[in-house]
């Protein structure tokens, strides 16, 4: 009998205690309503723009050289004699008068704000940099971001950290790593002589475009006499767009998509697997991959006057002489190729 009572008591406790605890918690503590940033608007140059705004609102620095941003920051003024004497610069660099052109490489532990142009010598290391026109010589390393309202030029073997952006033109040298890039025009691992800029292609209205399902290869059989296919493509398989073909619609593949040499896609390319744009291939819309993206020599995404994106869940590789008009993002980072191995 006692055993039975004990069992019943144990049952009542095991059943009732969690309920009592939950009821007490419900009564005593308020829930945390999940926060949605109602005013959030996407800005691909957010880092540079918000930092500029913060600095400009906080200027001038006080008599002790402190600038009050989210917290007081000791400032370094490059025009002061001996300001950059040490190889490591601990303060926030404020280049308010003239261009910022240090002769020797330094390690900048805080951000660099330049009211005008900036040019860092080879081997420089910095946390973040904003200015008008920016030039980074070879082997520079950025920890967080770099943003220029004018052209931004990056030499070979650099690391661009989290984000590099420009209001006009972003040029990356060979073997340069990045995570996010943004500019109306991005040139990647382009030879000094470069390739001529693309001429805009008028893209026809795509609404109600017919769809071809489950192709594995897009070839002349599906195209008109010009090699054009006036349809969008949706497939569960790996898809190849054969050389020189033109797809006027969008492409969506559950697996990989390979756009072969000199093929052209007017619309977007979405792939569950990897995307490969071979030599000279062009996609005028967006490229989005749940895997990796690789652009062969001379391949490009987007076109002048428009903004489009290349996004990969894994990595992005630009072999060389590539152009992207807009935004590039690779969750696991991307890199430009070496001219020596591009062919």
């Amino acid at each position, binding site marked *: 009998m006692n055993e039975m009572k004990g069992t019943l008591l144990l049952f009542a406790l095991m059943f009732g205690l*969690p*309920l009592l*605890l*939950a*009821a007490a*918690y*419900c009564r005593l*503590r*308020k*829930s*945390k*309503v*999940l926060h*949605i*940033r*109602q*005013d*959030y*608007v*996407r800005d*691909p140059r957010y880092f540079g723009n918000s930092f500029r705004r913060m600095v400009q609102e906080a200027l001038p620095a006080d008599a002790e050289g402190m600038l009050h941003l989210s917290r007081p920051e000791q400032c370094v003024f490059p025009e002061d004699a001996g300001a950059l004497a040490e190889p490591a610069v601990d303060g926030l660099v404020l280049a308010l008068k003239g261009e910022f052109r240090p002769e020797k490489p330094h390690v900048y532990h805080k951000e660099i704000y330049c009211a005008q142009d900036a040019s860092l010598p080879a081997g420089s290391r910095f946390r973040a940099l904003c200015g008008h026109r920016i030039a980074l010589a070879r082997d520079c390393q950025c920890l967080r971001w770099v943003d220029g309202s004018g052209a931004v030029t990056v030499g070979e073997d650099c690391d661009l950290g989290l984000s590099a952006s420009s209001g006009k033109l972003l040029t990356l040298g060979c073997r340069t790593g990045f995570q996010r890039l*943004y500019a109306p025009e991005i040139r990647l691992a382009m030879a000094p002589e470069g390739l001529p800029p693309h001429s805009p292609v008028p*893209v026809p209205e795509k*609404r*109600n*475009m017919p*769809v071809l*399902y489950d192709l594995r290869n897009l070839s002349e059989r599906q195209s008109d006499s010009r090699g054009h296919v006036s349809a*969008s*493509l*949706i497939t*569960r398989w790996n898809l190849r767009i054969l050389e020189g073909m033109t797809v006027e*619609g*969008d*492409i*969506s593949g*559950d697996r990989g998509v390979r756009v072969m040499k000199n093929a052209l896609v007017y*619309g*977007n390319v*979405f792939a*569950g697997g990897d995307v490969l744009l071979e030599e000279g291939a062009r996609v005028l*819309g*967006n490229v*989005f991959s*749940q895997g990796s993206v690789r652009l062969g020599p001379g391949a490009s995404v987007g076109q002048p006057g*428009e*903004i*489009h*994106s290349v*996004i990969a*869940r894994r990595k992005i590789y630009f072999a060389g002489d590539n152009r992207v008009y*807009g*935004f590039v*993002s690779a*969750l696991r980072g991307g890199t430009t190729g070496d001219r020596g191995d591009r062919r």
Partner: protein
Amino acid sequence: MVIKLLKGYMFFIIGLMLLYTLRHFYFTVQRLLGRQKLYYGDIITSRMKTISVLIPMHNEELVLRNALDALLECDYDRALMEIIPINDHSTDRTGEMLEEYHSKYDFIRPLHRHTGRRGKPSGLNDAMKIAKGEIIVVFDADYRPARNLLKQISLGFEDPHVGAVMGRVIPYNANKNMLTRLISLERSGGYQVDQQARYNLGAVPQYGGTVGGFRKDYLLETGGFRENILAEDTELTYRLFTNGWKVLYANSAECYEESPETWNIRGRQIRRWSRGHNQVLFHYFFPTLFSPYMTLIQKLDGIFLLFVYAVPMFTMVGWLVSMALFFLGEMNIMSGWWVILFLGVYDSFGNFAPFFEVGTSLVLDGTPKEATLLPLLMFNFFFYMWHISLGFFDAVADVVTGRTTVWDKTARAKRSKEAVK
């Protein structure tokens, strides 16, 4: 013979509950440890689609300003968008207030419906006929979209395979009472884990009828919403998947909603959902099984999802059967190692399988202490079981009699914008 039937039913219910437990567990593990698919929200493009935002409204004078003012703040190019509030047989000041907005903003074009059938599907069908946008985005009148939400939803349609996009709903009145707190937990588990796991797995993320969008042309070509089906969102999900389209889930496209604040209102809402969902079950069971477009995992998940609002009724009957067997002295239906199955079912009962998902979602959302409330979901479980079962029988009666359904609108709490903030 009767005893054998009852015992057979017990085997069925044990198997069913174990399958659903495994399903929830699999989704949870996938969300925690599996490969997470990216949504298209990071895309920046200058070729955005034209959209029409439809807001069904029936006597919404208390909340409509919240939704419209929030939409006016959105960063979508106004040349590419229009807002069509659907004044559906309102008897309060809804129509008058909408005309005030129209006089200030050309692109807010109210549709006043005073004749014809009332209800969300009928209202949406009428509005789609006058909508100019390529994409239809739907919000309920009590929702408050964030500034970038329209862009987030619209970007999904850059993919030609996508027929609908679904965002995430977050209750803003979670602190009102115990019911709203528990609904908040359910919402968290349902979106953060269940929907995202389905998206990750390439299964069947569900279009939820609001905070989402779909392609107008496809819907009009296929006859618009079926006005007799009360779960027009679930019906659209299955129509799309069985015809070769995809539904995307955008976890980052978040929007506040108002949860029901009384058990009575919640009960009626759940009963309507159950009725509509089971109507879809009766229509789409075979098309889902035999669709040439759906993959194996989509079919499997699709069938599980179709039965979601039938299972509580099966479970309730299972309890009645187990009690009958107990009092008849016939409960010894399993012995030896088979008892493990019983334990499994008992365990899934004790945990109410979705608990895995709710608990995990609370961790992912950064509110792990809320897991203390999990035992209280037991009350919802029994409450829902009853109302879902009623909804199931409503749906059966709909199919048998062919009667016309009547939309039962969820009543709003009186809530000012300041209270929302």
